[in-house]
């Protein structure tokens, strides 16, 4: 029952082109980077999942980009409006005290910004690089921002310089695939936060499965429940 939340909008503001930040006051007790919440967007049938950008004292923060009816509904909400969401859901990043290279592509920066905050609190060293298509799409908060090019092109140099134990990333499928391949080449662990259309949000409908290699065999895993964060090395990349 505690995963069904009736929150209220505390703040909503534009942070980049077609991109917004929403803060939701709720009864959520804790949340971890890589987890997500699923917002009910009437009259749409399916809830919209969003990576958590931050959490403090019951306030959950997420970023969203206008894509269609669901995100337009969220944008139409005003401060004080009710918002129905499920969460926090899914398995987040697990980094302990490792040196972490954080990579965010586009709005995929949200969970890695959250992870950066968590690591800063624990005095764990991290470096965040992010990539955006255009200047007006840039979301602030990175140690390095790439505009127009591919963020992956900058990683070999960063890996040599920063010498991370693990790369944590979120972004489009192709970016995560390339990062996983690169991590393998450098013999570094990669953790990737993946995305697909979700129906149930909790692993029962099997609508968002990917294949992973685990315990010596290829098996199905749901992004919403077994993920969204997976080891790059266990994902069967198509």
């Amino acid at each position, binding site marked *: *029952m*505690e*995963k*069904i939340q009736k929150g209220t909008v505390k703040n909503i503001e534009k942070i980049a082109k077609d991109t917004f930040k929403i803060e939701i006051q709720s009864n959520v007790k804790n949340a971890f980077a890589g987890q997500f919440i699923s917002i*009910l967007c009437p*009259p*749409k*049938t*399916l*809830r919209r999942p969003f990576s958590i950008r931050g959490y403090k004292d019951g306030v959950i923060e997420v970023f969203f980009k206008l894509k269609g009816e669901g995100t337009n509904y969220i944008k139409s909400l005003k401060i004080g409006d009710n918002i129905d969401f*499920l969460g926090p859901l899914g398995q987040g990043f697990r980094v302990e005290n490792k040196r972490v290279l954080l990579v965010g592509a586009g709005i995929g920066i949200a969970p890695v910004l959250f992870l950066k905050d968590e690591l800063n609190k624990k005095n764990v060293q991290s470096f965040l690089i992010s990539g955006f298509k255009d200047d007006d799409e840039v979301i602030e908060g990175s140690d390095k921002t790439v505009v127009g090019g591919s963020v992956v092109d900058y990683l070999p140099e960063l890996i040599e310089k920063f010498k991370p134990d693990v790369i944590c990333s979120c972004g489009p499928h192709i970016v995560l695939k390339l990062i996983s391949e690169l991590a393998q080449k450098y013999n570094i662990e990669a953790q990737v936060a993946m995305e697909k*259309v*979700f*129906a*149930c*949000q*909790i*692993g*029962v*409908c*099997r*609508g*968002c*499965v990917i294949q992973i290699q685990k315990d010596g065999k290829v098996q*199905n895993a749901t992004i919403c*429940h077994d993920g969204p964060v997976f080891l790059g090395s266990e994902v069967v990349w198509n």
Partner: protein
Amino acid sequence: MELKIANFKLNNPIITASGTFGYADEFEDFCDVSKIGAIVTKGMTLEPRPGNSGDRIFETDCGMINRIGLENIGIESFLENKLPILKKKNINFILNVAGSCFEDYFKMAEIANDNNIEAIELNVSCPNVKEGCLEFGVDKNALYELVLGVRKNYKGCLIVKLTPNVTRIEDLAIAVKDAGADAISAINTLKGLGIKLDFINGKFYKKEVQGGLSGKCIKPVALAQVKRIRQVCDLPIIAMGGISTLYDIFEFISAGADFFQIGTQNFTEPNCAVNLVCELEEFICKNGFKDFIELKTAIKEIK
């Protein structure tokens, strides 16, 4: 309010539909599963199935299309890993049974019988691989033979879930009754196609998903099919198709239904079934009905 389908007892007429509620334990953080009349398990086959590759979900106006492809853990793993949990938590359940040939269903029926599973629901919308992949549920003779064979091997409550993708659902309902089924559930998903086109940087991109349409958009079709079944068949009808409110339930009663399955709405509102159980009880108490049966009779009498 204790109700029965053959010898299968339910505390109320609200049931969660196959494929939308997993094996029930997944919903513990979202609702008190034990309050639901019964849950129907994910469609189960003799062997585990990985399901379809590629996109499996497509959202439509007021609904969704799925092509999961019956991904499931297989009956052996169900008996070993899920059945003990359902029993321990006292969750009333119906095993949904699927197969690719007659023998699959007969064997599943035998296993269900041997394991004292009180109720099964046959998914007859699966292709019969030995007969040109024609679905069992679209041919009244094949359906009769299928249900008859299952009935021989299974003594519990036998429910058959009819597909709406037929010309005359009445013929299928009669075949199912003649073969000895205890109840009919209707309807399974409608065949649908979702196409999404995007035009980005001068180029078209297409996403296409063909599968089963469900959700609020199918309610009028489901109501019509339930009414047609009721006109020719006196078996209990477990209705489904776009149910999300108490008045949806009342409308299905009016069309001839006795029990109700919540499907796609479990995704939108994971506590929908439990809420409906409470709302139904409250409606009965507040408005002076003795029990659900009396309410059902009153609605059926409305001209």
